């Protein structure tokens, strides 16, 4: 029996015990690669952990972007990124954190005020003087990759739809839309619903709030726990009855699947049920395809499409199901970016003092995408999309949007065929 089992403690807190100081983690860290300010995962993770316990002795751990490459490279099973996150939470608990961090991590709040005033806010966001002011006063870098607020939230649109049909756990998907879809990219949500319905599912959208990841990333664990508690309360009953919870954000997905447990120590049966019931949408669709149940009536989209798997997808440990789905669209040649991290790391890349690091981390990726000559690119996580889009000037979409478009084109062509067929003389 391992110490973890016998001592009934959560693994991440004690995984640092396994560290053999081999430095493999340091070789994969994107942040250490670009800045001398960050000593790297070994130093701020398992090495520093032995000095923690009372007052926090930390400073440089705050530069960790949480990409998780270190955890995945470690031969000894140390959960390094998770350790770093907890150390930051401890720093925040003891020393507090800036108002800026509290504001930008509260995306529900930002949406509540941003969407109603979207025209004004969005206009401001494009004006250099406003951005300079934002940097000076608000600490958000003037070139930070911000996305315009939507005019209407996804939830608002959903409420305006016809009645919700719950067709039971096998045939109904519980959609966790996340803040990006809700307040910034509602069309992605609409596409996701369309794709799911196309494949015979009913979709329901229960009460939910921000998954809490921005708060976790900023060390605001109590705040994150409140978000988590509300989500779990709403979702657990579905999870326990066998419904699948599907996300279009690999970040929200990872938070529900893993971070509630690994960071926030939420380990009760409800939290576990939600975790085990959570699926990334591409993961789900790919699994359907493996079972021969995916609607493959997809119209050709002849193009080269650079695809960047986000760090928060790699963390899921499911590979890149989007690539399997792209392969089903005739003529679509998806090219995996083969690059580690775009640099955004959620709110990290927005911050005045982190923006350059984030940009440097993603620079080779941006260059690759531009050099490919492609007209757009794909990525499953929102802040990554916005980072890549801002840096390259190209539109960046979620893989599911390509599926939706392909389904629509197929349906439109079929309808046209059908209509023409009807007019043809027998």
């Amino acid at each position: 029996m391992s110490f973890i089992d016998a001592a009934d403690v959560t693994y991440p807190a004690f995984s640092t015990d396994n560290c053999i100081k081999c430095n493999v983690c340091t070789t994969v860290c994107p942040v250490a690669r670009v800045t001398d300010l960050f000593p790297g995962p070994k130093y701020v993770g398992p090495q520093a952990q032995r000095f923690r316990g009372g007052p926090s002795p930390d400073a440089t751990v705050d530069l960790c972007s949480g990409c998780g490459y270190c955890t995945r490279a470690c031969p000894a099973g140390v959960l390094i990124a998770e350790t770093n996150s907890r150390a930051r939470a401890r720093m925040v608990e003891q020393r507090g954190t800036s108002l800026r961090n509290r504001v930008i991590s509260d995306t529900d709040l930002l949406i509540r005020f941003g969407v109603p005033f979207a025209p004004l806010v969005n206009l401001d966001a494009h004006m250099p003087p406003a951005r300079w002011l934002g940097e000076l006063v608000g600490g958000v870098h003037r070139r930070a990759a911000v996305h315009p607020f939507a005019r209407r939230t996804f939830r608002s649109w959903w409420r305006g739809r016809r009645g919700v049909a719950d067709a039971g756990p096998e045939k109904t998907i519980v959609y966790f839309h996340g803040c990006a879809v809700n307040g910034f990219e509602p069309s992605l949500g609409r596409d996701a619903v369309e794709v799911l319905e196309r494949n015979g599912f009913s979709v329901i959208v229960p009460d939910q709030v921000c998954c809490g990841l921005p708060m976790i990333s900023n060390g605001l664990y109590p705040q994150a726990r409140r978000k988590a508690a509300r989500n779990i309360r709403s979702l657990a009953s579905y999870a326990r009855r066998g419904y699948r919870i599907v996300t279009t954000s690999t970040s929200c997905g990872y938070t529900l699947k893993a971070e509630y447990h690994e960071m926030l120590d939420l380990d009760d049966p409800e939290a576990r049920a939600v975790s085990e019931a959570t699926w990334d949408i591409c993961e789900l669709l790919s699994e359907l395809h493996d079972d021969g149940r995916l609607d493959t009536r997809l119209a050709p989209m002849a193009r080269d499409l650079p695809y960047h798997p986000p760090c928060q997808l790699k963390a899921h440990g499911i590979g890149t199901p989007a690539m399997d789905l792209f392969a089903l669209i005739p003529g679509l040649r998806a090219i995996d970016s083969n690059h580690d991290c775009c640099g955004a790391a959620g709110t990290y890349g927005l911050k005045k003092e982190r923006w350059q690091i984030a940009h440097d981390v993603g620079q080779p990726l941006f260059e690759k995408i531009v050099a490919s000559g492609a007209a757009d690119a794909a990525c499953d996580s929102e802040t990554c999309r916005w980072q890549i889009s801002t840096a390259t000037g190209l539109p960046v979409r979620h893989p599911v949007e390509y599926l939706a478009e392909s389904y629509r084109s197929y349906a439109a062509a079929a309808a046209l065929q059908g209509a023409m067929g009807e007019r043809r003389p027998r």
Partner: protein
Amino acid sequence: MPSADVVVIGAGLAGLTAAIELAERGATVQLVAKGMAATHWAHGGLDVAAPPGARSPANGVARLKARGGHPYAILEPDLGPALSATFARLAEMGLAYRGDLRTALRFFPTPIGGLRPAAIVPVGQAPALEPWSPGEGLLLLGIERFRDFWPPYAARNLARQVWNPGPSRIESAAAALPGILELRNLNSLVLARRFDDPSWRAAAVAALRATIPGKGRWRIAVPAVLGLERHADVLAEAGDALGHPVFEIPTLPPSIPGLRLFEALRARATAVGVRVQIGFEVAGVERDGDTITAVATHAAARPLRISTRDVVLGTGGIGGGGLRGRRDGALEEPILGLPVAAPGSAEWLGGDLYGAGGVALESAGIRVDDQLRPVDPGGGVVLRNVRVVGSALAGMRYLAERCGDGVALASGYRAARLIAGEASNPSAAEAPGPARTAVAS
């Protein structure tokens, strides 16, 4: 459930070689690894065999094979082809190696002034092994503030080594490289990445050059930090600018030459269609009798299952985590639970861990038949569709014999050929004859 023809477990030399060879033969291969290990710690050369008294790797292999129980007893015929294939693919990825099975073993200086036997090394290390000509001195050229290279210490020890013939004189120096003294973080990785940057590189090389004592012919040894992604460019530029032959000496982990080797093989694997999944730790397997039908890896929320026809186990030895010592004195193989041949726990560290002979535990591992299938103490095959490759194999003392890389490459190669059905027993199919030589590059 996703499926693959072969799941390779482990991303070391053995696993990557098996995966590449399989994919090149048309198999769909999924390579899963908990992380990266020994490749990132080792010196980047290819140690094939250097037991005491061996004159060349081939000679060493013959000695080890004659001892009985050594993996080379099975793998020797695969060694030549495996090395050729490896050299070719590394060269294609811009990482050239020198030497082959017939090359005489010579002494390679280490950062503390030891001399290790070597024959097959990357081109950036090759000048170290050239015979010393009269009047040629060795200059150990370090980098100020870099804490993992110690020219004065190495010099005083190398000066006392019996080196026949060795350098006519040995000196040490250190160069202050631009911007380095102000850095907060300084390790081989930081330096190697800086060397990748052409403008910094030019200034750094100039600074190195400036510390070379004016007179005389030198062979210059620098720490192994000459670039990570642009290593070939850095070598060329350094070679030109320094005006003397220069070679890298690998030092403490993370090993830059080891990293280059790993990245080259990984890129090759990806290019030939292997799905390389680092960070996918095996959670368990599904069996049907003595056949594995699926491999499950840890993933967020629930394991990921991959159905498969064959499995290659290249999880390494004790250092890599493929074999684990238990408190009760047993050595276990944690993924498949294969029986491990090991000395009794009282003898594990019997010997001299830091001496040439090593300790008894070094020879522990999994016993296999000539098809690399794991066998129990009675010789019965435990799992029909599993091949064990690399440091997990029993019967070798890879430190004392310096044979780990040869065993890894040969076993990976052999496993691939066996799975691809190229011969049910390749060692019988190969005509006896001179060992194949490597492609010079």
